């Protein structure tokens, strides 16, 4: 099947490297300032080299609108950065592609958190799929795990470590006795935290992921403003010591209690032997189901290849479902 990649940062480039041996043909690539289209398939090593040298993946004269109007793709892969407030411009791009009868796979949390129900309805009307496994917890197959693996269960509660940056900071504060500013600086130096870490350390990133899980898998209809959010930026070392004295530690936990309609992100005191206590930048999600009981997923929550893994899973699912015998 033919793929158009919108967004050519770390995730888009990681995906382009992975797709080389998969049988998918990439016919179009766009970054924020340029694009390239070849109906017969692009030479991906050449596109990657050009991006590295010039910062542009293609020609500055063309853009996403040209890719959409060319129609030269079966699946649109949207991997541009998240806009949590409006989901734009990715939301409009995804809407257009679905309306054209094209499948969409995205790692972009904005459109899914802001408009999942609308986009899903649009995909259904047009008989195409909307894949978003990569939006939550990177490589961890939580979306297909809940939708398929645990199908038929009622989820009583969901708790998760959904932000690797916060988990790294809290792990280092506990293990090395670093203060919050020291641990944050270390996370920045290692590239785990952005220059402006607000989005991560204030719990907003984790909250957006909860909105996606709640709306797409747990039958809820909430917005980011419905989530009760507390970040980790005022956690003291003394708090970690007090927790440690009871055999516990502190982690930023996202929580969904569907029956109480309660969704919140907050630092919590958690026993050290709890399955959600994972180290470093790992992500973990525990669901408690009526039939299955507790089930915990753990894995890499970010990075080009873990994210590409989730995107590739969606792409393969679409190919298996829609491209039989082609």
């Amino acid at each position, binding site marked *: 099947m033919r793929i158009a990649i919108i967004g050519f940062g770390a995730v888009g480039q990681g995906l382009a490297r992975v797709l080389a041996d998969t049988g998918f043909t990439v016919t179009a690539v766009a970054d924020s300032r340029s694009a390239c289209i070849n109906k017969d398939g692009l030479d991906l090593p050449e596109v990657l080299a050009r991006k590295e040298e010039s910062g542009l993946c293609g020609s500055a004269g063309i853009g996403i609108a040209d890719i959409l109007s060319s129609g030269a793709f079966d699946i649109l892969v949207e991997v541009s950065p998240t806009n949590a407030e409006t989901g734009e411009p990715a939301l409009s791009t995804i809407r257009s592609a679905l309306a054209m009868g094209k499948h969409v796979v995205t790692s972009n949390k904005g459109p899914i958190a802001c408009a999942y129900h609308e986009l899903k309805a649009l995909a259904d009307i047009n008989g195409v799929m909307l894949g978003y496994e990569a939006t939550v917890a990177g490589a961890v197959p939580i979306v297909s795990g809940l939708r398929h693996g645990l199908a038929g269960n009622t989820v009583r509660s969901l708790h998760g470590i959904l932000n690797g940056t916060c988990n790294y900071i809290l792990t280092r504060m506990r293990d090395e006795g670093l203060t919050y500013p020291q641990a944050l600086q270390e996370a920045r130096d290692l590239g785990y935290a952005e220059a402006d870490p607000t989005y991560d350390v204030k719990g907003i990133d984790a909250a957006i992921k909860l909105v996606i899980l709640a709306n797409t898998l747990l039958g809820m209809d909430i917005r980011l403003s419905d989530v009760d959010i507390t970040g980790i930026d*005022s956690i003291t070392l003394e708090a970690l*010591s*007090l927790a440690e004295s*009871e055999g516990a530690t502190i982690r930023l936990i996202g929580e969904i209690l569907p029956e109480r309609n309660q969704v919140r992100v907050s630092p919590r*005191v*958690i*026993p050290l032997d709890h399955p959600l206590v994972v180290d470093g930048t790992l992500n973990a999600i525990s669901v408690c189901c009526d039939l299955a009981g507790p089930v915990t997923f753990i894995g890499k929550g970010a990075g080009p290849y873990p994210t590409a893994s989730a995107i590739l899973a969606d792409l393969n699912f679409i190919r298996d479902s829609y491209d039989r015998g082609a």
Partner: protein
Amino acid sequence: MKLELKDTPGQLLGALKPISDIGGNIITIIHQRDQTTAENTLTVDIVLELPEKKLDALIDALRERGCGVIRVGKERLLQKQSLIMIGHLMHTDLTDTVDRIDQTGFAEVSELHMVMPAIDEPSTAKITIRAISPEDMLHAVRILREVAAQKDILILEPLGGAE
């Protein structure tokens, strides 16, 4: 409670039945055979949870079966939960913070462990609350969260709820 039973077969089982009939939950039974008394009876210590206001009915039921109830010790606040507070705890009237829980009648602050690293820096405390029932604990924690929001105190709740 401490019970006095006749030292004959089936007596202990007979004493336990009224407890389950009344909806009680037995937590531990301490039964030491060598502590028989001159009257050929033995004593058994039972720790149990009972629904509110069922204690008198249970004592009557036990007496009807010939079990003597020697002593009843009541612990009202069975639920226990520890939370961590971070903020300017002293300067935001710690007494008032604790009073808001104590005044409820269904929950109390039973322990407070505070660390104050430096003047003008936020202090950190572990606060332990006891409450009658799990619902009362949820209510008490909700009150603490409201007070904390007013006083700009961060509350860290445990994952997994009350003990």
